[in-house]
Structures are given as C-alpha cells and as structure tokens.
C-alpha cells in the first residue's frame, strides 16, 4: 500500500476544538482515509501531528493557522478527502447560537460595549489561555479558565494578580462552576439550596452536586478552583478566597470542599481558615486518610460520603443492594476489574474504594498508595484509567464532550477474558455530549455472551438536557448495570468479583 499524506494550511483561520473534532471525524470517515486531523497549528498540536506522521516534510505552521492533514491509501483518496474538508470549511456558517448575535474580536471590545460583564469564560487552546485570562483580569473581570495545559508559573502569577485585584481566578482546568444560578462550562441543572461547594475537581463537584440535588436538597454556588490550587506551588490561593466568599454569603449554610489530598502546608492553612469560619464544612480529600479537622468540619474520603455528610447523614441510593445484584449474575472472566473513566475524580474515588476493599489497583492517575500505570509493573492488578488525563486529551476534546476517546479501550476490555467487570461513568449536563448512553450502547451492542459485566454510574440530574432517567433506561436496556453513584458502582464491581470467589 502506497501511503500518501497531504496537508492544507489555512493562514489565520480559527475554529474551536469541538468544531474541529466534528470535521476531523467527517474527513476520517472518507473512503480510503487511514487517519485525518484538523487542528490549529499551535506548537503542541504540530508536535502531535508530526509524531503521527500527518505533516508533510517541510510543512511550517503557526498557532493561528488551521491545518488539515490527511493520511490515505492513495493520492486520489487523500485529495478527495482534503477537497471535501475544504468545502466544509468554506460553507457559510448558518448554525450556532453565537452566530446570531454581535461578536466582538476581543475581551476589551466586549467590555467596552457591555460594561455589565463581570466574568470571562476562557476555553481557548492552553498556549493562549493565560494571555486571555490576563486581559480579563486587567479589565476587572473574574475568570473561569476551562483551558488546561497552562503552566504552573502562569497559574501562580494569574492567581496572584487576581488576589491583589480582589478577583476570583477559577482554574486553569476548571471544568465547572455555578455562580448564583449561572451554570458555567460543564455543569448540571441542579436544585438551588443552601449547600456551597469549593471544588478542585470538576467531575467531583458535578457528582457531589448531582447526588445532593437528586436527594432533594440544593446548591447555593459551586466555585471551581482548578486541579492544582492546593498544591504547594499555588498555596490554595483561590480556595482560601472561596472560603471567604462563602463566609459572607447569606445563601450558604454549609460548604463542601473537594480536592485530591493537598500539600500538608496548604492543608494546614486551608483547615485553619475553615476553623475560623462560622459555617460548617465537609472536607473531601479523595484518598486521604483521616485528618485532624477543626470542630466545625467533618471528613470524607469519597464523593458519595461527602454528599451524605452535607445532607446530614442521609444515605444516597439507600435501596441499592450491591451484594444482592452480584449474587444474581452469571460468572464471567478471571476476576479482573477495569475502569474507563471520563471523570478524573470518579477514577480517583474508584481507586479509594477498590483499594479499601483489598484490591490491588493500578492507574494512570494514581492516588497515593496506588501503582502508577506505565511506570511500575501492574500485572494482576485492576486498571483504573482516567481518560480525561492530558495524555488522552492533548489536541482533542475531553471525553465528556467526545466519548469516542473511550471506544478503543472499551472494545479491547470487552474482549479481555481476564476481566470480570468493566466500570464506566457517564457525565451529563450542559457542555457534555448530547447522548452519551446512545454512543456507549452502540459500542457494546455486539459484545460476546461471556464478555465482562458492564457497570455504569450516571452523573447528572433529571433536569439536565439529556435527562438522567432516560440515559439510565438506555443503558439498562443494553444490559448495562447502573448504580446510583460512582461509589456504589465500584462496590458492585467488588461484590461481583468477591461473589465469584476471586
């Protein structure tokens, strides 16, 4: 086979990553095409395409160039696919809500015309995100930075600038926030209530807020701080400001703080600040062991536990009987569990629960005490994969937007007879895929009768655009077991392998 690579570079042509993903898929589906990519020519994207053999020798690209790259079985197939991609790009835009309104070319122009704007939502490629955030802060705007791949140095300097100006810098890599009823980035349609959330984890915040909402209580605000805020380098700048913000908020009685275990120095200053608060707190440091807390705080190592404490010890999914469900299932596989997660914190919670049940666990996003995949030997261990990790998302959308990131790994897992269980999560809400259950059920439809049991949890509410119960129903009709929470999905996985005496 004579493999041909063709490139087209559009100078100064920008499309966001979701639009690029749709077009990439169209081109990749053309006859005779082996691989295709449409990407902005940022340095990191250029490296990805070069490593994949998708850039022709001598092709030079810049960050404001759109690159169409096609690898095909023949020159004619490559040419046809490239021509179709160019036609799609040149089609006048007729859809898209944003197209219907006035669009300024900069934050400065937007603020000049609409001085009421008080928050910038930034989701441009990581290389440019800090520059945009700085422009927003310079104009007195709070920032939610959804973009990731931003350097620690930039994060620190932006947060210091924000603190000095009295502004809230949420992120980078802040997946969700809810400020007063405004659902920002990935967020679920949750009930309003008197529980506040400070989250260094997007999916952790979503899981806890949805469990609280579905249990009948509600959220006042959820402030995202970004996954690295409680590391030593950043020192919890945004977390400390969020605690202060909740302190003076009359709508909030109780606050849940969600993070991976912080640096001890940062934990000390955060817990000290909580200790001075007049409000009660639930502290959820996923994977941490019991820590010394002030009298107004209680600890949970899991998201479900955090939701239960915030609800005043109300049980989530009280009628769910993991052992009973497990006892009714046929045996399959040799006792292994594999988790394929879109939500990073759901993956971390799974590690906590499996490790606590005595399972040997490995993960690409290992919590303390768990073996790191690809670094240490992991034979015979359960594998829990965070598909939202940088290694899977560089140059492409997050699996919550594009669930196909999981497809290949899922197909491989379904054929793996060492596995008795495959654990999955579906994350609903604004910003997420329109119908992740439909996508998933198509992938698993032709699995063999002796394939591992599929267990899913659905992060979402009935009021979300996808509707939680409709998604659950689709999964159940496809023979997928659905648990009320991620934690209970993990407990069911453990019960299945224990029930089989493995």
């Amino acid at each position: 086979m004579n493999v041909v690579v063709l490139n087209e570079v559009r100078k100064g042509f920008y499309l966001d990553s979701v639009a690029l993903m749709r077009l990439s898929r169209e081109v990749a589906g053309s006859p005779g095409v082996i691989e295709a990519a449409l990407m902005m020519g940022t340095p990191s994207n250029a490296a990805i395409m070069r490593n994949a053999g998708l850039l022709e020798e001598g092709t030079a690209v810049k960050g404001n160039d759109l690159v169409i790259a096609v690898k095909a079985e023949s020159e004619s197939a490559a040419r046809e696919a490239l021509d179709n991609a160019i036609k799609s790009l040149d089609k006048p835009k007729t859809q898209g809500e944003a197209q219907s309104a006035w669009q300024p070319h900069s934050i400065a122009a937007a603020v000049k015309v609409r001085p009421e704007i008080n928050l910038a939502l930034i989701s441009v490629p990581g290389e440019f995100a800090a520059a945009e955030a700085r422009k927003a802060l310079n104009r007195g705007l709070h920032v939610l930075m959804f973009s990731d791949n931003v350097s620690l140095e930039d994060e620190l300097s932006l947060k210091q600038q924000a603190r000095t100006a009295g502004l809230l810098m949420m992120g980078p890599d802040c997946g969700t926030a809810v400020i007063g009823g405004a659902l920002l980035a990935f967020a679920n349609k949750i009930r309003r209530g008197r529980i506040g959330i400070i989250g260094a984890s997007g999916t952790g915040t979503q899981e806890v807020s949805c469990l609280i909402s579905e249990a009948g209580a509600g959220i006042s605000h959820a402030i995202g701080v970004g996954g690295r805020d409680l590391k030593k380098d950043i020192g919890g700048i945004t977390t400390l400001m969020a605690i202060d913000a909740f302190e003076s908020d009359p709508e909030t009685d109780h606050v849940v703080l969600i993070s991976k275990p912080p640096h001890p120095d940062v934990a000390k200053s955060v817990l000290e600040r909580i200790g001075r608060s007049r409000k009660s707190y639930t502290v959820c440091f996923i994977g941490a062991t019991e820590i010394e807390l002030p009298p107004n705080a209680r600890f949970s190592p899991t998201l479900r536990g955090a939701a239960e404490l915030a609800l005043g010890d109300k049980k989530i999914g009280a009628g769910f009987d993991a052992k009973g469900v497990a006892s009714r299932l046929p045996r399959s596989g040799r006792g292994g569990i594999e988790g394929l997660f879109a939500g990073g914190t759901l993956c971390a919670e799974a590690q906590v629960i499996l490790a606590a049940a005595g399972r040997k666990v490995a993960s690409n996003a290992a919590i303390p005490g768990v073996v790191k995949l690809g670094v240490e030997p992991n034979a015979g261990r359960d594998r829990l994969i965070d598909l939202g990790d940088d290694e899977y998302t560089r140059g492409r959308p997050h699996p919550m937007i594009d669930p196909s990131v999981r497809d290949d790994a899922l197909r491989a897992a379904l054929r793996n007879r060492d596995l008795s269980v495959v654990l999955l999560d579906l994350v609903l809400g604004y910003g997420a895929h329109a119908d992740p259950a439909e996508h998933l059920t198509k992938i698993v439809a032709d699995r063999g009768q002796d394939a591992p049991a599929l267990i899913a949890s659905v992060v979402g509410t009935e009021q979300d655009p996808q509707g939680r119960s409709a998604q659950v129903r689709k999964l159940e009709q496809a023979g997928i077991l659905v648990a009320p929470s991620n934690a209970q999905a993990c407990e069911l996985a453990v019960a299945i392998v224990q029930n089989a005496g493995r």
Partner: protein
Amino acid sequence: MTDQDRPQYQQLLARKVEVVNVGLEGFVKDLRDCGIDVVHVDWKPSAGGDPQMAALLAKLGV
C-alpha cells in the same frame, strides 16, 4: 461592612453574572438556555499565533 465595601470576589456570589465567552462556542447556547447574558468573542490567536509573543503582549496590556 456593607456589600459595597467587600472585595469584588465576595460580592460576586450576590451579583448577577454576565459572561464574555472566549473559546468554545457551544458554551454560549448553554449559558443562554440558563438565562445568562453572554457575549461571544470571535477569537483568533493573537500575535500571529506565537504563544510567547501573545503572553508578552497581554502582560504589557496590549
């Protein structure tokens, strides 16, 4: 302390949020569906697509 005397980040929770969206266009529809006023920036990488130059210009307030 009155609300006006508090730092802006403490006032944010009590204020109506109005958003400028820079990046994924899909967020605009989601925000409008929730009744949030939003202006979408027709964004292109600045400084000819050179991230370091773009960062420098932003620091200089350009």
